């Protein structure tokens, strides 16, 4: 028994995850990369080749707007999620152990909801016939029920609902480890509670706050259903257009090229995070 336990972990074990990554990530990516350079046959499929036509389409103003929309939506979701998750987590960390567990379990439950369920639930909730508009009208806040979707508001709500639990889960460990005496020390030294928060709590949590924002950004960049269910066509993101090109326009080379670009944008964000983390 003990002799077996003492033996070092065999090196070939590392081959399993490596093979997994190769088969399910690298190979599909290579295929996608190959397709992105392929020649499109209009009205048909595509034939092998090497041309930059699909990438050249990135240079159009139309495409620039799509990219900008994607980045702006994700950045907005990241900002809102961190702005909500930070105070939420600070309050959560101060609650009793039991209450904390309950809230965290509820949060994990939200994680189990798929984009589809969140999208269609919100779409119903914000609709004219079955939504909150009826409630507001009943309260007398508005004349008669109206729809709140599709709209930027509805889309943002959906994105934040989807990503908020991740932001909280990233922030929770560092926030709960933060020594409350640091804030108290600041107060004794003359800082109002708000000043103590800005001069001590926020700077000490700069790295996790940034990490949470990047996570939400990258995560929402890949969302493709919510913009179609809750947004107007102007809010269609890169991910939506990838789906659109691949499935409805049968333009796989262009869809693949856009997917490569999406991956590069995500990688760039992760790279920035790593760089900032090292500088510290």
């Amino acid at each position, binding site marked *: 028994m003990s002799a077996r336990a003492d033996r070092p972990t065999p090196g070939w074990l590392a081959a399993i995850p490596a093979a997994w990554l190769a088969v399910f990530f690298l190979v599909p990516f290579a295929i996608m990369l190959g397709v992105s350079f392929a020649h499109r046959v209009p009205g048909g499929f595509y034939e092998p080749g090497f041309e930059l036509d699909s990438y050249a389409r990135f240079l159009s103003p139309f495409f620039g707007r799509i990219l900008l929309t994607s980045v702006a939506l994700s950045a907005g979701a990241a900002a809102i999620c961190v702005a909500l998750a930070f105070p939420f987590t600070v309050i959560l960390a101060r609650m009793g152990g039991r209450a904390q567990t309950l809230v965290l379990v509820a949060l994990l439950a939200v994680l189990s909801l798929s984009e589809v369920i969140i999208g269609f639930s919100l779409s119903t909730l914000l609709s004219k016939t079955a939504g909150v508009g009826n409630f507001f009208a009943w309260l007398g806040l508005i004349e008669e029920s109206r729809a709140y979707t599709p709209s930027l508001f509805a889309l943002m709500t959906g994105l934040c609902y989807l990503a908020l639990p991740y932001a909280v889960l990233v922030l929770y460990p560092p926030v709960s480890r933060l020594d409350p*005496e640091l804030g108290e*020390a600041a107060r004794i*030294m*003359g800082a109002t509670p708000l000043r103590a928060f800005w001069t001590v709590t926020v700077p000490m949590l700069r790295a996790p706050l940034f990490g949470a924002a990047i996570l939400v950004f990258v995560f929402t960049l890949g969302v493709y259903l919510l913009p179609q269910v809750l947004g107007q066509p102007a809010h269609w993101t890169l991910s939506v257009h990838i789906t659109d090109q691949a499935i409805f326009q049968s333009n796989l080379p262009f869809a693949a090229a856009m997917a490569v670009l999406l991956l590069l944008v995500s990688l760039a964000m992760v790279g920035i995070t790593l760089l900032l983390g090292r500088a510290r």
Partner: protein
Amino acid sequence: MTELSLHGLTKRFGSFTAVDGVSIDIPDGSFVCLLGPSGCGKTTLLRLLAGLEEPSAGRISVDGEDVTGTPAHLRGFGMVFQSLALFPHLTVAENVAYPLSIRGTPRDECRRRADELLSLVQLEGMGGRRIHQLSGGQRQRVAIARGLAIEPRLFLLDEPLSALDANLREHMQVELRQLQQRLGVTTVVVTHDQKEALTMADIVIVMDKGRVQQVGAPMEVYRDPANAFVAGFIGTSNLLPCELGEGEITVSGRRIALDPGDRVKARPGEAVLSVRPEDIRLSADGLPGKISFVRDLGESVQVLVEHEGHEITALYAPGARPEVAVGETVGVEFVPGTRVVLPA
């Protein structure tokens, strides 16, 4: 200029009373040690003073001004936490100058003052370092310098030296006391170490179970404990049950006449006799006992005597070492004038 007065200060957490009706007056410039066993409410009392906890009852006044309802950031006190609570995201100099920069002091002035404070605690030239680059003793000094930055009306320290090793701790005790005397700032230090309290304090406040047991100068508390708890907690005391009569006590059936120098704090009847180890003499007379152990410590010799289930400790200077051996039967006598009779 800081005279600190507490009136019936009480703090309850639910049904548990952590600080129970503490009333004390502390003159300006005093070095006060709050001494008591772990969990007796010292930290809670200090946090009440600082304004970090709201009292359930009672008042706190400084210089005759009632500060009970004043928020912590307006009290103008300095504090050193047990954890030190130094800011890891700031440099040493920025830590020290934090109370000044919060008050809008110009940058140059902050830097000048930080240098001044750092040299006060013998950390010249360390201002640019990060907290994690300092040793435990250096961090201690940074916390002290930061607490003194605004020339506080009251300087509060919670077990400031407990994380240091024994040698450094004794050194810092002396240094802290000297610093306080130089600055004249009224200081309250929490400690559970009675030696530390005796080394530093003008006034020792002994606490137990949230209540003040005795307030006095160190030697007063040592020589003249108010009750059995204080006698047992400060230094080593031999505590023996006794019966107090008219001018005499009865210990284990043996009558001992009291001397005018002996202090009687108890009412006639059941009481506790308290005698310091250095005030015990071994002779042919006295209470019969059996030597159970002889501990030769070089600087002193401790002789443990077993008497009717009680262990009595006698302390001798090395030169005065009595000729006794373990197992031998001896008589235990209490030097007249050193005996304290306390309530049972």
